[in-house]
């Protein structure tokens, strides 16, 4: 399908670049200075690089980051693919009821999850104490790199699940049915037909989880805090205090290092993908669907799903809820004597906390929808575009993914401070929305492109043949075909925005409060009562939001 280069498409690329490049440029520039970029005394210098490279802690942090990121990918991708196959293709009992629950781990701020684990399975957590009373000993240690890796892996399964499931749903079942007719077992179909067909989604989500591993902040911050367990993001955090005054140049160097890992990964990912045509599976014909039978394995599969939910959702949430309704806990405390609802009534006295709750909802629902509209616009601009621009765009959208949220938030704080025309936006939720949308650009776009990848060119070519314009094709053919992908993206982006905590930390102020950043801000001084109450409110709001979405027909199990 040859056509003239369209100015609309080029404009989309330029608009994306305008949103992404200023914060990136500030960070790179800052990394080669010897002081904050806005101070006249700052000079060009590689001293920050020398300092970081000579620091033993940096190498330790880099090593454990690679270990954690690899480990969590190895946990999340196979299990996520398995769950997607079980829920989308088989007769797993109770799958309709269970599916919304699968997503809960991505609703929860990692700070909240980690906090919940400490209350539940920490050295004096209630599960630990119970276990020790019953069996004499509790053979685990929550504060190790292995625990952080395992928890990170388990909590990132939903990311893999969402990408894989939405691709599987969009995929024709003919091939699987053919295999079934030919006598293949369900396991064999999964391993030799379904999973290979969703390879793009698995690769994307694998790379994504690996990236997220580079950005892990909440879990290592809380679980690794007293043990001195360092990953790159907590190392970056440590650098804020190392020299007494904020050392932006050192933080920028670490951010640049993280991005240096991100770019080759994008390249590898593109290479692995090969020709996208191999994976096209929405063809111009109807789709019917009969679930594959698991037989007696149904109950094993159900036990696996419930076991994962128990470990990843029930245990930490029980910890958080427990903490929200007691004044203290731990060894030697009778919980029945310390119950209270005081933490919640206290919130009402603080308008900034109430604004935080309102802003969080606003940025999740409205901001999420707007962000998906932007992502879809960019993805459609690049759709079936054989041009060097499309490649530029592809790398461009991966760039912010490589920036840790904390650093991206700081960079946006500078952008809103020093670029005068947009300065008035700084104290409004709009600044947060822009920062969030850019930080999660790659994330939201991959879901949309994964869906777009499944659309065979012949439907669009048919429309072109009968004389439809490019815009008409997009409106009447492409968008309707990916509508489930779009709804899924909105849901995903909503959840991510509501949970986001690191990006907003530096933008936090009256007008831009969100629950996640408030929790981080309260964490340092220790208003644990408020934190646990806010966490519960966060969880409840998201749960309600999900229910409303389901009622409106955004069916995650479509």
């Amino acid at each position, binding site marked *: 399908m040859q056509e003239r280069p369209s100015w609309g498409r080029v404009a989309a690329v330029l608009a994306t670049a305008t949103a992404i490049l200023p914060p990136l440029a500030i960070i790179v520039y800052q990394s080669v200075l010897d002081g904050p970029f*806005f101070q006249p005394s700052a000079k060009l210098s590689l001293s920050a690089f020398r300092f970081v490279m000579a620091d033993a802690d940096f190498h330790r942090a880099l090593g454990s980051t690679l270990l954690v990121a690899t480990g969590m990918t190895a946990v999340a991708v196979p299990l996520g693919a398995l769950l997607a196959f079980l829920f989308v293709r088989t007769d797993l009992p109770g799958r309709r009821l269970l599916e919304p629950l699968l997503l809960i781990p991505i609703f929860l701020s990692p700070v909240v999850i980690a906090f919940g684990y400490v209350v539940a399975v920490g050295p004096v957590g209630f599960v630990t104490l119970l276990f020790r009373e019953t069996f004499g000993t509790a053979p685990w240690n929550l504060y190790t790199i292995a625990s952080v890796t395992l928890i990170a892996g388990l909590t990132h399964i939903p990311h893999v699940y969402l990408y894989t499931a939405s691709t599987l749903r969009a995929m024709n079942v003919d091939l699987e049915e053919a295999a079934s007719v030919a006598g293949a077992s369900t396991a064999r179909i999964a391993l030799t037909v379904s999973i290979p067909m969703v390879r793009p989604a698995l690769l994307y989500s694998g790379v994504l989880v690996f990236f997220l591993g580079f950005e892990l902040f909440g879990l290592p911050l809380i679980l690794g805090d007293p043990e001195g367990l360092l990953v790159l993001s907590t190392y970056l955090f440590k650098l804020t205090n*190392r020299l007494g*005054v904020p050392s932006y140049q050192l933080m920028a160097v670490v951010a640049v290092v993280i991005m240096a890992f991100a770019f080759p990964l994008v390249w590898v990912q593109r290479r692995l993908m090969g020709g996208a045509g191999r994976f096209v599976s929405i063809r111009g014909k109807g789709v019917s669907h009969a679930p594959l039978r698991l037989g007696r394995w149904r109950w094993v599969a159900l036990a696996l799903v419930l076991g994962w939910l128990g470990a990843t959702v029930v245990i930490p949430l029980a910890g958080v809820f427990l903490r929200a309704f007691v004044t203290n806990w731990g060894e030697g405390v009778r919980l029945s004597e310390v119950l209270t609802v005081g933490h919640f009534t206290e919130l009402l*006295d603080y308008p900034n906390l109430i604004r935080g709750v309102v802003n969080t909802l606003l940025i999740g629902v409205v901001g999420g929808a707007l962000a998906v509209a932007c992502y879809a616009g960019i993805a459609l601009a690049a759709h079936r575009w054989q041009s060097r621009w499309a490649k530029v765009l592809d790398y461009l959208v991966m760039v912010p993914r490589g920036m840790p949220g904390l650093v991206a938030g700081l960079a946006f704080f500078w952008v809103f401070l020093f670029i005068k025309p947009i*300065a008035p936006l700084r104290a409004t939720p709009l600044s947060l929305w822009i920062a969030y949308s850019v930080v999660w650009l790659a994330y939201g776009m991959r879901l949309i492109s994964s869906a777009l990848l499944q659309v065979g060119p012949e439907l669009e070519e048919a429309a072109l043949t009968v004389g439809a314009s490019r815009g008409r094709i997009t409106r009447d053919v492409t968008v309707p075909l990916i509508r489930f992908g779009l709804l899924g993206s909105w849901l995903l982006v909503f959840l991510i925005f509501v949970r986001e905590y690191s990006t907003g930390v530096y933008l936090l102020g009256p007008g831009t409060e969100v629950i996640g950043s408030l929790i981080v801000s309260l964490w340092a001084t*220790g208003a*644990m009562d408020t934190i646990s109450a806010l966490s519960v409110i966060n969880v409840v709001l998201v749960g309600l939001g999900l229910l409303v979405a389901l009622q409106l027909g955004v069916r995650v199990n479509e």
Partner: protein
Amino acid sequence: MRQIKASLFLIVLARAALAGDRPATAQEVIAAAEQEGKLVIYSTTDTIFVGPLLKDFNSLYPKISVQYDDLNSTELYNRVIAEVAAGNGSGDLLWSSAMDLQLKLANDAYAQAYLSPEATHLPSWASWRNEVYATTYEPIVFVYNKRLLKAEDVPHSHACLAKSLSADPAKWRGKVASYDPERSGIGFLLITQDSRLDPDFAATARAYGAAGVKLYTSIGAMLERIQSGEHLLGFNIFASYATARQWKDPSIGIVYPKDYSLVMSRIALIPRAAKHPNAAKAFLDYLLSRRGQELLARSALFSLHDEVEGEMTASALMKKRGGNFKPLPVGPSLLVYLDQAKRLDFLRRWQRALGTK
């Protein structure tokens, strides 16, 4: 008749008390402040602690609307220097527990001078160049878990703590918590002061290391885990936060070390870039006034005003616990360890003593 006389007397007394309770801010400053109509405070003190204070300030000056930004200490510093560089104004009053960073702002000419009429009630160490004012008197203490640590095992001085740690490292292994001087600016400030005041600091640090001390960035996490029994004891902890926690949970025990108790303070200053400098002056006066200090004391932030009475005051502390309180003087001596080389060198020695490197 006597009754009427008595009640008249009471009314007069009450009015006198009320009038005396107004901060001594000059009329023209108040007029200008009300003209400005707004006040932006950047603070590291949780809103939870200052709610009553802000409400009362508002009832005194209803024409000044207060915006209270609750930030952490490095963020606060970051934000101010970046905003000043952008040339678009900044907060009107900066109120932070990172004493060294506040002094650095003043030393680097970010602060403006204002001689507060309330400063006469402050001790001499509590202000510098009429630019920086200490507003609280918060001892640094040991905190322990009363349920799990027997009264006879509670150490009452740094030396005693070091001794019991070395005597039975197995019992204390992983059970002691403190700030991580590498990752927390406040923690660094406190441990460098310890090294100055504790004649046997090297031995004390070795004892901490032998007990496998757990080092935190968050005071909240520390208190939470001492409360739960994961740790038995924490050192270098603000008495203010510990007391606020103790009011809610009596299983928190507090020790004012007998050999010496450091005293930290929340430092207030008015930046040159303030857009509402008069409102900031009115608030600073209020913060230092008897009326403001009484409310601070009620929120567990200890008062240093010489006329405020009650348990949470500098005078009551000294009367009850003896004279071993060592307030950090507000002045350039706080800047010593902001020197990069000195700081890194201290950290290296600390890690070596601890045996972690």
